[in-house]
């Protein structure tokens, strides 16, 4: 190790009730709480947001609560505020990244946010109905407890509410095309769907990792034991360690690229503490999403839908002080560098999104060389292909990655994806959003408003306390 030699791991203190966690950033969040103490990131921030809630929706809730048809206005406002803080918590620093030089991400993101808010409610309502009701949606969430290589994961499930409702509504408010009390019924539809999926997946009463000190420990113990049985020891500095980490990063890179530089291609769960004190992280890397036409280069290399990596980290070796698996499925640690503390690994492949778990197969670390070459070939081909695309194609392709992929796994398991394509024109662009394409580059809307309103948590206006929960949009004036 480098600069952490000799330091003891203290990360377990983060799970003590009175502990407020570490600060990962100096910035603070205000949101709708003007005149009050600014909210921090991390565990302390979660506590502050829960303390400011006016309903019980941010505490552990019961199955009956989740099955209820809709949220009350105070519950909607608490969820709106909490999601705004959570978005700020995970994205405010990422949002400093500026231009891509290749994919206009801010532009495709804002279009997707607004498209989702308009189009998802009726699709999610149809999906709930076709699946058999609220319990069936909770069961879809629960399916992730016995699976790897599934996009029913933290980032996708979080996106339903945080992106489709939160960022979508925030973007439309910033564009001044809706008011705070418009689309309340639709907001309820989106948030209920999110709550049911997440509650069914976690089964502990919470819905978000940040509510549980940034833990996403969803897998059943007997399922996990099948995974850990395949883990091979990896000694830092050894060829095997290098082979594993080299494959890991190459697959991570392709997952980002296939999903247009967004995190929908990656999904972490954990940390799971193993009997020997090591921490286990499971990482799904979706390197070949078949609904994207540009994934043909991944098909050419015979890449599976997903590689899943199991990696163990020695917390003592790195002097681990805090580990967060956040709600966009990304692991961050303090100290920051956990790679040299990886002590074991295993790799699995799931050929298609619906390949039965019994047919998911392990790949020995010594056999990763062939896979690495194919992943690198696909990366170069996809880069070359993407570099030739014009701006408009890049923006709409990226828009589809968000707007379709964020709810694709839930529709697939509900059996409603084809119906959404056929009867709901899923892959068409709503006329309103098509027109916004020309608005978002004016006055720096995408480059300035998105970071300043959406990722800063500043534009998430509350619903009026006396607003009617049935409100849609009554007038365009």
């Amino acid at each position: 190790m480098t600069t952490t030699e000799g330091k003891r791991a203290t990360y377990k203190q983060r799970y003590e009730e009175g502990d407020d966690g570490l600060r990962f950033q100096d910035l603070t969040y205000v949101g709708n709480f003007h005149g009050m103490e600014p909210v921090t990131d991390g565990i302390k921030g979660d506590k502050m947001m829960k303390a400011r809630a006016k309903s019980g929706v941010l505490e552990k809730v019961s199955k009956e609560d989740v099955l209820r048809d809709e949220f009350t206005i105070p519950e909607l406002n608490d969820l709106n505020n909490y999601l705004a803080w959570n978005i700020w918590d995970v994205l405010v620093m990422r949002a400093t990244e500026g231009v891509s030089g290749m994919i206009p991400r801010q532009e495709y993101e804002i279009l997707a946010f607004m498209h989702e808010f308009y189009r998802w409610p009726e699709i999610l309502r149809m999906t709930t109905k076709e699946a058999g009701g609220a319990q069936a949606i909770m069961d879809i969430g629960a399916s992730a407890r016995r699976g790897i290589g599934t996009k029913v994961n933290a980032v996708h499930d979080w996106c339903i509410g945080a992106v489709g409702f939160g960022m979508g509504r925030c973007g439309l408010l910033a564009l001044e095309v809706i008011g705070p009390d418009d689309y309340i019924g639709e907001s309820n539809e989106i948030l209920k769907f999110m709550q049911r999926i997440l509650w069914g997946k976690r089964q502990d009463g919470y819905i978000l990792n940040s509510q549980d000190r940034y833990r996403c420990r969803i897998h059943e113990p007997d399922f996990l034991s099948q995974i850990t049985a395949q883990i091979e020891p990896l000694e830092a500095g050894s060829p095997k360690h290098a082979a594993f980490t080299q494959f890991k990063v190459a697959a991570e890179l392709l997952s980002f690229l296939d999903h247009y530089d967004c995190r929908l291609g990656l999904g972490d769960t954990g940390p799971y503490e193993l009997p020997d004190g090591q921490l286990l992280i499971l990482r799904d890397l979706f390197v070949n999403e078949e609904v994207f036409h540009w994934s043909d280069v991944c098909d050419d290399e015979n890449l599976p839908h997903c590689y899943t990596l199991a990696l163990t980290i020695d917390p003592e070796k790195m002097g681990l002080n805090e580990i967060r698996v956040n709600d966009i499925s990304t692991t961050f640690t303090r100290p920051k560098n956990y790679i040299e503390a990886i002590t074991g690994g295993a790799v699995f492949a799931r050929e298609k999104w619906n390949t039965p778990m019994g047919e998911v197969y392990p790949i020995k670390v010594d056999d990763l060389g062939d896979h690495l070459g194919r992943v690198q070939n696909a990366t170069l081909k996809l880069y070359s292909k993407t570099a030739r695309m014009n701006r408009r194609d890049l923006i709409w392709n990226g828009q589809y990655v968000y707007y379709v992929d964020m709810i694709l796994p839930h529709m697939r398991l509900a059996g409603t994806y084809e119906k959404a394509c056929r009867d709901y024109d899923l892959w068409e662009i709503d006329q309103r959003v098509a027109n916004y394409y020309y608005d978002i580059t004016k006055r720096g809307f995408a480059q300035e408003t998105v970071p300043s309103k959406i990722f800063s948590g500043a534009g998430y206006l509350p619903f009026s306390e006396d607003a009617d929960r049935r409100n849609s949009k009554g007038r365009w004036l």
Partner: protein
Amino acid sequence: MAEVLAEGYNVFDTAKSPSGTIKYLSAPADVINLIKSGKLQEHILLVRGGTTTFLAPALSMGAIGVITMSGAPESHLGILSREFQTPCVMTAYLTDSDSRYVVGQTGDEHFEEIAKALDGRKVRLDCTDHEVGRVVADD
């Protein structure tokens, strides 16, 4: 004491201290040409943004060090450079200039100033500090 030309966020602390000539990459064609030249590992790569896709093939083919003019360790390029164990300094600013990057408010002149000052310089990255990464003259 070697001259510190620029500083920024250190993505992860590491004893690795790559040395090379800074190469400013402004378009995907620059990335492809550098890889085709076979000289990728002679250069510290300087880019404007903090996203991953732009540098994807360079990271994949073994870039030794990266400097960005925007972004943070939480940005996608930050995450990937940590995973690649490629030392990376993000949102770098020139130590002899007052110009700083502010999201949505920074004009092209800021980026051009940095590119002009650093492109072609022989440097070494110092990423041993928990928070601050340094670009040190190695001429």
